[in-house]
């Protein structure tokens, strides 16, 4: 028993010594954590690429690319806690829930960490600024425009396949889309279904739409998971040419469906640019080179600069339309 105690003591001392050795290092670089909704999603992998590009440009930056397995707020809180523990310099997060993350992110800010949200936002009290990839209004208008422009005389029936019912950004875009619908008086919205950003569930929901609405002309999926599942469902149901799938998707995942005709066109901003810009902003705020306050202008490298509005939110750029003419050019990028 004596011997065991001595050994435990020795182990403890060794531990303490190794600790002292390691805490001091690795503090000279600015460490920016890019926290995403869930790992393994093409869009966020592309954003991480952009963040690495910004890091290479800035030189003294270390990117920590992380996120939970499922798109849950609880999972992101665990990730935030571990980032607080590591004492990172900045957290740039795409949130699974705008409210539930606020206490955890407030704690991060209390401990001197710069917190910004990008893509899917956090309530203003939980972050210093929010970077929108585009303006919600432009996205809402764009997705209904894409559906209408491919219908004869802009006339037909459409349905929406969204992510989860609690997804912040999808809900806003659908809201903005509805606001733009008076401009298209002959387009009828049949309903909104939720595929939870899961490939199999999105596929089943899309199949459900095809079967319940024989007159369906277009499916609008403002999510990169949903649009692929919907295009696959349309292909499998033999409805290519009858039902057009559009919305927001990734060129690499949609290339095949654009070529087959299941999707005539779709839109997306460039996630590489988004990860790049978020990193640039986080860097400038963390180093005290910029202030997050209404009206402030923050440089974002090759993307120019963003201007914060009265809620400290900023828009990066407009969404870009991809179709058969340019898909080959972009499908290898993201």
């Amino acid at each position: 028993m004596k011997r065991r105690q001595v050994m435990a003591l020795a182990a403890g001392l060794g531990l303490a010594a190794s600790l002292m050795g390691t805490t001091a290092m690795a503090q000279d670089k600015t460490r920016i954590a890019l926290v995403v909704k869930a790992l393994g999603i093409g869009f966020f992998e592309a954003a991480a690429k952009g963040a690495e590009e910004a890091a290479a440009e800035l030189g003294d930056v270390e990117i920590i690319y992380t996120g939970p397995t499922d798109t849950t707020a609880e999972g992101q809180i665990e990730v935030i806690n571990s980032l607080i523990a590591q004492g990172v310099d900045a957290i740039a997060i795409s949130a699974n829930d705008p409210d539930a993350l606020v206490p955890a992110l407030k704690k991060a800010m209390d401990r001197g960490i710069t917190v910004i949200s990008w893509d899917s936002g956090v309530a203003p009290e939980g972050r210093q600024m929010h970077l929108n990839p585009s303006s919600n209004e432009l996205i809402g208008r764009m997705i209904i425009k894409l559906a209408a422009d491919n219908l004869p005389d802009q006339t037909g029936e459409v349905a929406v396949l969204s992510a989860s019912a609690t997804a912040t950004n999808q809900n806003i875009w659908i809201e903005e889309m509805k606001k733009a619908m008076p401009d298209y008086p002959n387009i009828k919205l049949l309903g909104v279904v939720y595929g939870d950003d899961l490939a199999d569930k999105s596929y089943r929901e899309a199949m459900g739409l095809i079967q319940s609405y024989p007159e369906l002309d277009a499916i609008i999926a403002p999510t990169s998971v949903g649009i692929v599942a919907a295009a696959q469902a349309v292909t499998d149901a033999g409805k290519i040419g009858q039902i057009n799938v559009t919305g927001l998707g990734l060129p690499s995942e949609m290339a095949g469906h654009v070529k087959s005709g299941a999707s005539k066109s779709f839109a997306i901003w460039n996630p590489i640019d988004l990860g790049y810009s978020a990193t640039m902003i986080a860097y400038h705020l963390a180093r005290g080179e910029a202030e997050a306050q209404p009206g402030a202008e923050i440089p974002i490298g090759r993307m120019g600069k963003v201007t914060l509005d009265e809620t400290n939110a900023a828009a990066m750029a407009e969404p870009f339309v991809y179709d058969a003419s340019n898909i080959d050019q972009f499908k290898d990028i993201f």
Partner: protein
Amino acid sequence: MTGMNPTRAAVRTIPDRLESPARRALKSWETLLLAVALAIFIANSLASPYFLDPWNLSDATFNFTEKAMIAFAMALLIIAGEIDLSVASTIALASTAMGAAAQLGVGTPGLVAIGLAVGLACGAFNGALVTGLGLPSIVVTIGTMSLYRGISYIVLGDQAYRGYPADFAWFGQGYAFWVISAEFVLFALFALLFGILLHATNFGRAVYAIGNNATAAAFSGIRVGRVKFILFLLTGLMSGVAAVCLTSRLGSTRPSIAMGWELEVVTMVVLGGVSILGGAGSIPGVVIAAFVMGLVTFGLGLLNVPGIVMSIVIGALLIAVIALPRLWRKWRG
């Protein structure tokens, strides 16, 4: 062969147990788990310079305290041969009820009472279906899992409840003293209460008896249905406690709250050495299992290991800890 004198025969003592208590303790599941927990703790300390910090360790406890509180009640339920898969949905329903009440201006004590009451009601409904109608608990609670969360979705849709009173935040964000969080105090308190209930009361003996042989237990005078009903009530109540803590920690309610927690709770219970077939297990085991799971996820999180790798590690850990003793016994013949 005039026969032996019965009074002179050597007294045969039948030992209560074949090994000394100390030996038995050393070979027990809890010791194995404790060794695993210590190994993980030391590995974490060596792997990350940020691990051995009181505040960081305190933050880490939030990863498991709420789930563990449910796991204590779930352990008793599983030992008695039943299961409740509706616990996470009970959290969603209780949280939704608290959110709705908060919108009407109900204060913190009222909100806590509502959360606990909804938890109890959910448990009572499960218990009534299982013990009253004699339905299998796994089927009943898979049903109520959808039912309870379904109600939350109907009430909230894609909306959220915010605006909880400021002092409500104490349960999930407050500290009792220094780095010891309010949640951790609750966790320790309930560990003690459930430990006493299972290991030092007649009720606890009845739970084991039912799990080993419900018919024999009934013939021994144990009111099997009543004990099981109480266990469902307790599980519902603890889900209500977890709902109060989690809602307070998040400061908001969405219907997707605590999604998927039922499996993590059951994993914790099984990792704690509770037999999924019933009849065996202990609260200390579940407590250590809670720490093991919390330490593994936090330690890997500090190293920024992707979440999917964490799931694989937890899964592998579960299978290893369960398979190793069996392999050991097989190997020793």
